[in-house]
């Protein structure tokens, strides 16, 4: 459980529709990343978005650190540029699997949802490995009819990261 993401009653029909819409959002988001199109990744966020990846031990203890910590879309864009153009790392392909989407809150402040994710990584010459297992705690807002992330907290269970986490979750 993540603070601010308590489950509140949502009309069953509305929840179902939102869940389908969020599942489509996840599919688009993951497709963008899994295709290696990291420079389109910032398009899924609002200008004031918060994006953080952190270990469950930090989330549970209320510790604020992020493996990745961005509190603006501009920071997300800087990371995307660096990953695409300037960072040194071995080539890899990633696959995201998102499931168990649960709508937690739906109101004027946005839609809050929780989902599970699995991240598979394949390096050159190696087996595919389960790189990370975690949960998304998402706050969506609507802009021009489309959902955008105002907050994404990626809280992972995988205690020991295998060397590094290069590409976004």
């Amino acid at each position, binding site marked *: 459980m993540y603070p601010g993401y308590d489950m509140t009653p949502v009309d069953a029909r509305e929840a179902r529709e939102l869940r389908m819409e969020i599942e489509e959002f996840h599919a688009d988001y993951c497709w963008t990343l899994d295709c290696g199109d990291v420079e389109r990744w910032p398009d899924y966020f609002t200008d004031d978005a918060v994006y953080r990846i952190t270990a469950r031990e*930090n989330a549970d203890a209320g510790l604020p*650190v992020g493996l990745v910590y961005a509190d603006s879309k501009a920071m997300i864009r800087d990371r995307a540029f660096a990953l695409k153009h300037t960072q040194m790392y071995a080539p890899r392909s990633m696959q995201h699997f998102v499931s168990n989407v649960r709508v937690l809150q739906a109101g004027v402040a946005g839609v809050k949802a929780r989902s599970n994710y699995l991240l598979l990584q394949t390096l050159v010459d190696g087996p595919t490995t389960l790189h990370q297992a975690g949960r998304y705690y998402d706050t969506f807002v609507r802009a021009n009819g489309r959902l955008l992330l105002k907050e994404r907290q990626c809280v992972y269970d995988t205690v020991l990261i295998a060397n*590094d986490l290069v590409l976004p979750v």
Partner: protein
Amino acid sequence: MFSVNTVIGQPGSFAKERLDESHEYKWPEGGLQYIPDWVYTSPEIYQREIRRIFHGPTWNFVALEAEIPNPGDFKRSYVGPTPVVVTRDSDGAVRVFENRCAHRGAEFCRTQRGNVKEFVCPYHQWSYDLQGNLQGVPFKRGVKGEGGGMPKDFRNEDHGLLKLDVSTLHGVVFASFSKDVEPIEQYLGPRILKDFEVVFKERRLRILGYYRNELPGNWKLYHENLKDPYHATLLHSFLVTFGLMVAGSKNGMIADATGRHGTLASAKPEDVAAAVGAVKGEMRAYREDFKLADGRFLQYVREFDSPWSVTMQTIWPNLIVQRELNTLGIRHIVPNGPHSMIMLWTMFGYETDDEEMVRHRLRQGNLMGPSGFLGLEDNEAIKFVQEGVRRSPSDRGVVKLGGDTQGSTNAVIDEAAIRGMYAYYRRTMGL
């Protein structure tokens, strides 16, 4: 599964990973300008390192006092690869003992951190106080009418947990299996102590959180990485492009008298454009077109009485102290066999930080750690080195930059601190 097991050629399948004590470990000719691959690959050398270094007369980092502020607070930790528990005793002192029940050997403490009155081994419920003394043995006198129980001469005092020596310095806790290690200030030496105190002396830390990763490389490669200013100006486009560390600017590689510890220091140039412009032709990682959309994260708030904006300290054998502009942290190295190490990161600020300073540190934290712009590149490079030395039949690396000098240097294009570390290593290892 550790990532070292996901590379073609499993650990142990190459001849240089199977050298035992019958092998003649002869350092290559040419003194310290060559490093033999077997220091990274031999299981015999690894075992000798555990005995002579991690369990020998060294001070090993185990915790920050800020993690265990109150009596009864504890933390799981490691000395070398050996699990230990660090506690705050009821009298306020810090204690360190093996995480191994004195009875049958169970590793009894299974949670990272917490607060307890006593430790109870779940297997047979032997209990220990916060100092590691044996308190209680269930059915110590057996069951009435049935016999059993401990012999009459069994004394709890003889069966406590194995206790380590403890030193705390400005809120940093070190432990040692050895009684023969000098006092901690002396162990660090004045040159290292100076920059250590900049971060810790008279400061109360605020823990911001943890990262943990496996790094599939020999533990010494991490020390080498931070005793290697040459790589910093070449590998890391962030350092180069934004002038955080530039060859020709004010930099220093400071070693202690023994050569085992080091401080990689640099001062952000006043005129970044001029400093970078003078040397950018040599640096492929320089990117003219890279402009930050959000420049806040590289701002430097001058909060230290130090000429350096960056000090990265390697404290032998298992601690890195990171002060990279305003992002602060320690890295605790846990060796995990010859081919792998575990890195335990604790990021912190100070209790005096306001909310904006905390956020600044968190933003700047994107430089370091297993997803950091600098951190991930180092992890990748170290992994590449381990795979290279492990899988190729060639047998040595070259460290000739700067000639055959050892220890401190003001030059960036220099490997003197790596040579100095190996001079110490050879003495301590009998190589």
